[in-house]
């Protein structure tokens, strides 16, 4: 689960932590939960795209959940929904 702001400053740590988890658990499906993300700019697009490339190279997929309207508008500009799946959050 991601939380807070995703911008250029925070994205390096997010990438590092996520890649560490991918390397440790080698999931077939990576779910990125945006329900606790209060702000996201194009750095968030890069985070998702980078993780998509890693997962695809390992034969896996990526899904996003809890994406609010504002963040979805940004993701739509990038065409990211052609690459990753969107899922409703499992909890309120």
């Amino acid at each position, binding site marked *: 689960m991601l939380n807070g*702001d995703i*911008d*250029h*400053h925070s*994205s*390096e740590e997010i*990438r590092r932590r996520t890649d560490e988890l991918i390397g440790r658990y080698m999931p077939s499906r990576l779910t990125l939960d945006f329900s606790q993300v209060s*702000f996201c*700019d*194009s*750095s968030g*697009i*890069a985070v998702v*795209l*980078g993780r998509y490339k890693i997962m695809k190279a390992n034969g896996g997929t990526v899904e996003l959940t809890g994406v609010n*309207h*504002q963040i979805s508008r*940004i993701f739509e*500009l*990038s065409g990211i929904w052609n690459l990753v799946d969107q899922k409703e959050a499992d909890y309120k």
Partner: protein
Amino acid sequence: MNILNRMQLDFQSRSVNEAFARVSVAAFVSQLDPTLEELADIKTIVSEAVTNSIVHGYARSNGCVHITVSIYENRKIRVSVRDKGVGIPDIKKAMEACYTTGSDDRAGMGFTIMQTFSDKLKVRSSPGKGTTVTMEKVLCPRS
């Protein structure tokens, strides 16, 4: 058109200041009682412009990022983000979607987002002399 209010902000080109910049601009614009979506748009375009200055403008050095926000009649705001960094050799190319001179951790969507979420975008830049990005947005009428 008359300027009703204005603020200026200078800060070092450190990435930790990106959040400070967008929140400061949002706080200043709040006097117009924007909608939540308008506020989110403004924070986003500020974040993109400031990040460009920090990541690209000052890629090889530290410097100062200058922001000016002006409020005009008819609920128009103008945000200007200026740096004295390396400048952009080809502005048209830089504004192409997904184009970036940065590493894989950049999506190259900054200018596309600035164009989409503002009503007007102007970029002035010269190699070695820095870049000024000016964005305008007219907020919806409020009763």
